[in-house]
């Protein structure tokens, strides 16, 4: 348990989060954004996710932690229906956003994905210019009528992602020339350029060095004011630092979910306790 206390001390010192304050804010703004009920996922014959029921609250960061292959990424990909394109993948149960089933027949996947953005584990900028990367979403969704509107959206998104100052002189340079951390912030800028309500992040820092990771975490902290964020992470420190709520997955089960403070300081389940104290994982 000592580990956990040290972790929390560190985060408080960083000014990122005070555990008590976070809990309080979690209670006050506990408006349900996404509501998953009895979600099961099958890849062919493999039963990857068992009966997951989880509420995600608005304008909070929810962290999903667990060992590799526990189904947390699979669950994340259910939320914007990215599993639809996987051959042989079947999802049962219901996932509602603002009270509407996102798997209902009348839901347009394209529209859904424009409301639920996603940032991937490996930075995946399009092999085009920095400007074109951010402008792509607004272009295909028709958000900008004129070139000037488009430029405004691009600049604002880059500013929100904290990348503008670094790239303002080379907006038309290829995005693949950026560093890994810059590429990931570009992907975040790209995601928020179409103003989604929810941002899913699938281990966004696992390919980055600690400094780039710190920048992304700061950024998430700012984005939380306007977006609902769900982050899958392998780093328990990261979950403790940035999230208000944490869910622990193990072997396809959602073992435990609660405020981050509770999960890290007073977990109910033995498996959670073993994982966060580093007995396995």
């Amino acid at each position, binding site marked *: 348990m000592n580990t956990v206390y040290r972790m929390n001390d560190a985060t408080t010192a960083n000014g990122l989060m005070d555990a008590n304050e976070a809990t309080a804010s979690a209670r006050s703004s506990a408006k349900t954004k996404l509501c998953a009920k009895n979600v099961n996922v099958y890849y062919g014959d493999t039963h990857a996710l068992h009966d997951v029921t989880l509420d995600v609250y608005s304008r909070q960061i929810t962290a999903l932690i667990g060992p590799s292959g526990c189904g947390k990424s699979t669950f994340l990909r259910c939320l*914007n229906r*990215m599993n639809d*394109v996987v*051959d042989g993948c079947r999802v049962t149960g219901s996932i509602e956003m603002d009270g509407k089933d996102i798997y209902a027949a009348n839901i347009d996947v*394209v*529209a*859904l*994905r*424009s409301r639920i*953005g*996603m940032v*991937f584990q*490996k930075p*995946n*900028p*399009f*092999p085009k210019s920095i400007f074109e990367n951010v402008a*792509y*979403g607004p272009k*295909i*969704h028709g958000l900008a009528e004129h070139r000037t509107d488009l430029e405004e959206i691009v600049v604002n998104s880059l500013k929100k992602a904290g990348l503008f100052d670094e790239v303002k002189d080379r907006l038309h340079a*290829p995005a*693949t020339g950026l560093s890994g951390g810059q590429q990931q912030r570009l*992907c975040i800028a*790209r*995601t928020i350029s*179409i103003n989604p309500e929810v941002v899913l992040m699938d281990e966004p820092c696992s390919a980055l060095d600690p400094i780039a990771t710190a920048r992304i975490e700061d950024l998430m902290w700012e984005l939380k004011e306007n977006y609902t964020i769900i982050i899958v992470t392998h780093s328990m420190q990261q979950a403790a630092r940035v999230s208000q709520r944490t869910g622990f997955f193990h072997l396809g089960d959602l073992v435990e979910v609660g405020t981050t403070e509770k999960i890290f300081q007073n977990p109910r389940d033995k498996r959670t306790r073993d994982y966060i104290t580093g007995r396995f994982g």
Partner: protein
Amino acid sequence: MLQLDPKKLRKRAWAERRFRLYGIMALIFAGSVLMLLVSTIVSSGHSAFFTTELDLEIELDPETMGISAPYTKDSLMQGSYYTTIKKGLYRLFPEVTGRGERRELVKILSPGAELELRKYLIENPGAIGKRITLEVPVSSDFDQLYKGNLPRTGKHTRLSQAQMAWFDTLVADGRIRYNFNPGFLLGADSRYPELAGIGGAVAGSFHALLVCFLLSFPLGIAAAVYLEEFARDTRLTRIIEANINNLAAVPSVIFGLLGLAVMLNFFGLPRGTPLVGGMVLALMTLPTIIISCRSSLRAVSPGIRQGALAMGASPIQVTFHQVLPAAMPGTLTGTIIGLAQALGETAPLLMIGMVAFIANVPATPLDSAAALPVQIYLWAESAERGFVEKTAAAIMVIMTFLILMNLIAVIIRSKTQTKVE
């Protein structure tokens, strides 16, 4: 501690060196064979880019030429200029008077001399009635004699001693010119080697490749995109996939037979035209393009697809905005290599009749034409000695095109490689 036998170590090091030596020897062998091939072709073909011409003074008497005013293009086309030119040559050799001797003498002149004079008159009708000096081509045998390709003695001598003596006099008098021959690059085929050009075959190949590209490129990309991005992995798509790979290995003459049976006999398209040639070549190029496009699509990082999907792009938008542009360099490289193969293909063109003697440069893909490799085949089997250098020169032309096309493919590939890094 591990003790290694020094004998075995030496043996290993020696084996290493020996293997490297084998590699170098193989490279040297391949390189020297290539050098031998290229140098043989260039040494026998370079002279085809030049032609031997005779400085001849000609009396432009309208009566002898059978023309009368007004001297329009049409009326000048009707004239007969052979006698006038012959007279110019007789004037140089006043001692040659016998009919038989004179008949031997005029063999120095190429039939092209007449055409040369007609062209001159159409451009300068004001010269009629005057005496002019014109450079007219000499016939193939004398051209070859001057270039040193014809033996002066022995049983292969095609010219009499008198003819060679007359020609030597002309050379001694400084009347023989050795000029660059633009007609070889621009002109069409001819029965007379000194007049034959590669231009018609180049145009025919160009039209055929154009048709081939316009058909196979969009079709190939459409097929590759569908198979790679949209089709489900079923038994049917696997059968189609296997057959595309098989198609790439079908001997080209069979595609020619298909063109003969289906395009000419069933659809009744015009025989021996670049249109049909291009269609047959497109069938051959299609598998190459599909395979190269599919492998480039497969090489596009799945992250790009997922990223675009997660932005709310529809599958078609993902493909056409992000994936296909990223796969384009590889596809273009494959396409150029496929077209280069098509450029060198002979057998299918023989089957669909692009093997006729065509004395005009084709203007459209619907005109009968020869193609470069077919022209090489036609000239290589001609009996006249003058066609030997033409054949080699035509090979030089087709090799130049092939090298250029492959160079473009290499440049595209290296450019995109640096971009990705």
